[in-house]
């Protein structure tokens, strides 16, 4: 007698076999998975040494807070993301390394972030706007987003007139300007030539007003004003440039100019939500493993082949019972 090829249980077993064969022939399909690429540029100028963050009850410097948050952010990123690292001092952004895979090269990336130090700074000035504009150029070249960590403290203070102009196209590079530092003024640590801390900057240690460019409006009313010899007035300006807080208004204005978003640094998780809100998603090729699904399908087909009639009978009986119950009141 010939086998009955229309037997549904034979068909189910055949399907199971096909699924199992498929685990060997087509185990994976190509899909796309979102990832993030960014260049992190960290301000390493003197004001980043201000200790106005705290961790487990101890004061920590802004730079240390940035490092902790950045390392926590790395752990949140989905896998094929690529991170580059740069430092900012003077008016330049110095690229340490081009973006590398955050998962595969986590150990060196983590160690490099840990090694960031204000002693890497090649000059004491801090021209945040110039550094930011260069960092944006760099991020565009590297086809990455930008995270620019700074407290916004320009040293020496920016000229009174002629705010820095951004030549690039706004919003071409996505990312964040991350404001680092407390809202209260705090003293800035001072170091000697050999890098040892020797107290805090005093009021006489820093210039409080830029004497470059045109004098500010109203300078003619200052004491000792002379249009040719003393356009800024005779007295040295005294201000609070020796103390530091995060300059949010200034950073927000820079963010507006460049099309980046502004966020204040709290911790790694907050940084991740802030960044994820503005990040550009980069779909990357990924392989999706079909074998678990195929295996589960094979198991299901075998199960139905064995238990199918049982289930079908149970189903029928249940329907009949309902049918009878339905009929009974009518009688």
């Amino acid at each position, binding site marked *: 007698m010939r086998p009955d090829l229309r037997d549904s249980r034979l068909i189910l077993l*055949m399907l199971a076999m096909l699924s*199992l064969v498929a*685990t060997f022939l087509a185990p994976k399909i190509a899909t796309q998975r979102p990832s993030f690429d960014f260049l992190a540029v960290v301000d390493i100028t003197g004001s980043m040494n201000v200790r106005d963050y705290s961790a487990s009850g101890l004061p920590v410097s802004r730079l240390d807070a940035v490092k902790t948050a950045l390392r926590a952010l790395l752990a949140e990123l989905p896998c094929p993301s690529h991170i580059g690292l740069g430092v900012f001092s003077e008016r330049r952004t110095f690229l340490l*390394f081009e973006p590398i895979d955050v998962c595969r*090269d986590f150990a060196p990336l983590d160690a490099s972030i840990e090694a960031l130090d204000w002693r890497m700074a090649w000059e004491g000035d801090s021209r945040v706007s110039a550094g930011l504009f260069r960092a944006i150029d760099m991020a565009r070249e590297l086809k990455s987003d930008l995270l620019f960590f700074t407290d916004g403290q320009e040293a020496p203070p920016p000229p009174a007139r002629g705010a820095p102009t951004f030549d690039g196209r706004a919003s071409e590079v996505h990312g964040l300007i991350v404001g680092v530092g407390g809202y209260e003024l705090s003293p800035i640590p001072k170091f000697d030539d050999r890098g040892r801390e020797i107290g805090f900057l005093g009021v006489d240690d820093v210039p409080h007003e830029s004497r470059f460019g045109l004098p500010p409006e109203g300078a003619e009313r200052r004491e000792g004003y002379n249009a040719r010899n003393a356009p800024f007035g005779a007295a040295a300006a005294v201000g609070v440039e020796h103390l530091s807080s995060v300059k949010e208004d200034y950073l927000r204005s820079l963010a507006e100019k460049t099309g980046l978003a502004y966020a204040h640094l709290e911790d790694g998780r907050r940084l991740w939500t802030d960044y994820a809100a503005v990040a550009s998603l980069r779909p990357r090729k990924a392989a999706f493993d079909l074998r678990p699904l195929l295996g589960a399908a*094979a198991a299901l087909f*075998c199960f139905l082949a064995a238990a199918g009639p049982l289930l079908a009978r149970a189903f029928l009986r249940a329907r009949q019972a309902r049918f009878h119950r339905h009929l009974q009141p009518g009688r």
Partner: protein
Amino acid sequence: MNALGFDHIEALFLAPLALIPLLRSVLRETTIPSLLSAPADSLSAVARGCLKLGGVIAIGASLLGAAGPYVAGTEAERFAEGAQIVMLIDRSGSMNETLAGRTPSGSEESKAAAAKRILKRFVEARRHDLIGVAAFSTAPMLVTPITDHIDATEAAIDAIDRPGLDYTNIARGLAMALSMFKTSEADLSRAVLLISDGAGVIDPKQRDDLKAEFRKTNVSLYWLFLRTEGSRGISDQSAGDDESPQAAPERHLDLFFRSLGVPYRAFEVESAEATEEALKQIDRLERHPVRYVETMPRTDLSASAFALALVATALLIVAKLAEVGLGVNGGAR
């Protein structure tokens, strides 16, 4: 034997389903007036047992395969020829000029770009080295720690032809490079590869510190001096006894390095080809046993589970194809 792991352990929660073939066969039921009409025979009992077992295995092994079982990979310590190398790269502004001292134009290559190309090839050829990268201009910078992650090292080398910074402060750069070696690994072969296009004057205090540090860490030093055409070189003749380090910093730096008491070679190169030749020599010199950890890939077991399930399913299909009806309603379900 390593730990067994599963990628999708949830598939195993369905494992009780594999028991159903013990209760129900995949074969058709046939109405027979009495079981006594068939004599008891042990072959049938074996066949029935095999088919039940086949059903259990088909479902169970499929689920096991779906769970993605694997044996975790091990980390094996191996020995190879190589070294721990810290590349200390000059990032002063002059590195962006050509070896002829001009701004690169057309097909000309800057010193930094040439160094980048050649160093990358060097790194790729020495897969078992542990390489760290440090940069220096006025201040030293740790770029990547000593690591066996070649991608990270290459990303750091890729960044070296970007615009450089200010001056050449070799002493602080060297101190940074030496600090990157761990003292616990003093038995390994270690070297600093200094790549610069100029020399600086090291003040006497720093000389003593550096000398002590070099002796302590016992790190050999290779100086790849990218000499700009027409500038002073390492081997220029002394102008006299009263020549100051400021007048010929290259020669005096060379003399200082010779006095360190550690293996030292200087390579003065004026072309990209010569640079490559120098690196080949370093490659030959720095070949000592080096310990490295090789991560063995994990062993995937799901294929075996699927193969087993496939055999069991095939057995059931064979049984299904061989089934015959008995009696009048043999063809019916």
